């Protein structure tokens, strides 16, 4: 028994030292909040929920792309997946899609973190997609024309193909779900670049509070183009506790 206890120990002891085991109300509130609840008036709240960084889209696109690694996918896998995502949420007359949102960049990184269990299924599945593309079209999936790509994906979706784990339909649903995640997630995770996903469905953006008039405006409310992590309270170094606005902003956006 107890094979996980050694792992628990360091963490629990560290966290234990952060908290008195018999906290007074004052200490307890200090421990649980960046502002003690007792000190929060309505006025303090409106202060709290004001965005602490101006709207913006971060550093220039080129400088990010140039320094970017593929963390999990191979180069061919990434190219294949890019073409699949482009079919799923296309760039078209209605505006940008998964490619501009950089859904593949998101998926690649997610396979090293919360989607790590899917890594094998991506390897097997992307390989099977290319095998089928070569058999039917004579070239890799990303080299096919759009109509052939769509026909291939329909075959994958309809569970008609072998060589997938756990099934071709299951692979399709997984990739579709992750592509949506990467197009509509908080930009911190590497997708939804320049908020193209949120703009696509007219989501007006992260706000720490929404007034009745905000809600009444619905999709007419001007998008604020903010990440959760443009609000320093959620970043590693809370600006109103520690550090300067400059040091905070470094820790705040996409770390790619």
């Amino acid at each position, binding site marked *: 028994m107890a094979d996980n206890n050694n792992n*628990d120990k360091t963490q629990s002891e560290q966290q*234990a030292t952060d908290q008195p085991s018999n906290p007074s109300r004052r200490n307890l509130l200090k421990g*649980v909040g960046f502002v003690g609840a007792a000190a929060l008036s309505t006025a*303090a709240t409106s202060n709290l929920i004001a965005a602490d960084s101006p709207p913006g889209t971060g550093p220039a696109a080129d400088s990010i792309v140039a320094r970017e690694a593929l963390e999990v996918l191979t180069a061919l896998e990434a190219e294949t997946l890019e073409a699949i995502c482009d079919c799923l949420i296309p760039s078209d007359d209605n505006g940008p899609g998964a490619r501009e949102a950089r859904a593949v960049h998101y998926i690649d990184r997610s396979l090293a*973190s919360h*989607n790590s269990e899917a890594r094998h299924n991506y390897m097997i599945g992307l390989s099977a997609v290319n095998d089928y593309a070569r058999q039917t079209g004579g070239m890799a999936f990303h080299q096919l024309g759009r109509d052939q790509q769509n026909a291939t994906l329909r075959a994958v979706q309809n569970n008609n193909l072998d060589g997938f784990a756990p099934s071709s339909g299951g692979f399709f649903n997984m990739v579709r779900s992750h592509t949506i995640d990467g197009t509509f997630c908080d930009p911190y995770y590497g997708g939804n670049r320049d908020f193209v996903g949120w703009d696509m469905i007219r989501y007006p953006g992260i706000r720490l509070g*929404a*007034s009745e008039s905000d*809600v009444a405006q619905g999709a007419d409310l001007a998008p604020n183009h903010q990440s959760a992590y443009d609000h320093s309270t959620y970043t590693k170094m809370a600006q109103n506790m520690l550090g300067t606005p400059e040091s905070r902003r470094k820790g705040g956006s996409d770390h790619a």
Partner: protein
Amino acid sequence: MPRNLSRTDVVIVGMGAAGGVAALPLTNAGLKVVGLEAGGWLSPRDFAPDELRNGARNWPQSVQKAASEAPTLRATTADQAVQGGHPMMNAVGGTSMHYWAQSWRLNPWDFQVVTATRERYGANRIPAGSTIEDWPFTYTELEPYYDKVEYAVGISGQAGNVQGNMNPAGNIFEGARSREYPMRPLRASPFTDLMGTAARNLGWNPFQGPAAITSELYDGRPPCQYHGFCNRGGCHVQAKGSTAFTVIPKAADTGNLEVVTFARVINIVTDNDGKVTGVDYIRGNETFFQPADAVLLASYAYENVRLLQLSKSRAFPNGLSNNAGQLGRHYMSHHQGSPVLALFDRDLHNWYGLPAQGVAIDEWADDNFDHADLDFIGGANLWVHTDRKPMGAAKMNTFGAVSSWGSDWKAFIMKNADRSNMSYIQKTTLPYEDNYLDLDPVVKDPLGFPVTRITARYRDNEKRIAAFSQDKMEQWYLEAGAIKVSKFGPGNAMGASTHAYGGTRMGLNSDTNVVNEWGFSHEAPNLGILGGSVMGNSGSRNPTLTVQALAWRTAEYLASNWRSVVG
């Protein structure tokens, strides 16, 4: 050997929604309380408005003790039990850190289902195979404790019945309450106005449901900011009345509460006379024995039952408080599936809502309508609410209008992302003979202890309520202008649920119940049990406020009858 700690008056196992409430009356009475909690402290800074973090990353549940001991599930003994996820989290405050915070009182009928059904419809209307009993007391007995919790935790809502004075702005079917809610309801929205108007057009009585969420400055906590990340997220301004921000700090103020975090209780210790003497817990890589004169078990329905089943001793060879063989029996997962989905032809303005900001209909709940010509008892509370986030919105059902990808799909979601709504319909769920919890013979947690195995399924009564209530819900949506409506299936297996009931049922008969009318074991007199595990039926609304009222009552009974309980 465990390291012996110094004796305390009371140990509470689990500092969540129930244990946190129980700590207050005990410490106010001057009793020394040690609260053992498997998780740690969280702060408002931990609850970012981040859909991916709360959803796909499953934070903070993904790193919790509960996740490592999720129950296995099967519908019947003929099926293979499969392990799923755990619906609850570990932290000071427990799942009250991030729950929807709907805070209902049960209706009086729920306490007296057997008697009331017999009186109104005759002897034969209790579904075959159901083990339901009346509660050992009526709504009136619990009313003062509902009231205490509503004011201590801070509930916003609109009363429908204050001492018999009816107000149709609230729930006219509720039991009489001694006074108004401490706060007005959460604000309305364009969508709740739309649905409220439609309900009135149908002759129904819509009302804003109660929530453990501040609608105004309350007890030093600011009002809800409606930012839209309440669902699966904690509150960034402490507007949500988690016990970690309400009753636990008050209990700590007395100087009589010690909270021990990251403490995993593995055994409740008993002497040869069947009295509880304390608990063993692991913290880090060390095992401790915490002696106590009384133990209140407040982990969760699954963990309450499991810990008792694992705590075998000379006095209780089949598990603690199981000499009558009732431990794990009368288990239920609330039937809250089988929703109805609607598509409207206009934007609903739901991006900044929350699950507790909604409209309720109680006409078709409980025994609020005549069942003489129906083939079921009980009913469902209909609930529609505001709540939408972008990833979920993009994954919306397309109602068969387009395929699930490509340019047509993209055009569809661009138009309709803010135009759909899914109902939340909570149904009367009853206990049955062969629905139960036991220890899984195969699957173990990382410490080597077996996990809980759920063997349970819904029966005709729940499925008939589902079909009946879906028709009412469809009628409501269509009246509000929905252009498409879609219904989900009736459900079968009872999955692991945030609304889990039974397993240590409360009742006067010690042959069919684990705890008595005060929440103390029929067999181990200084062991109290808190949580949905003591409830014998679900009612048709969220359980937390009832769980908390029962917890307060059990704790107050212990403090007031200390000598007789601890002997």
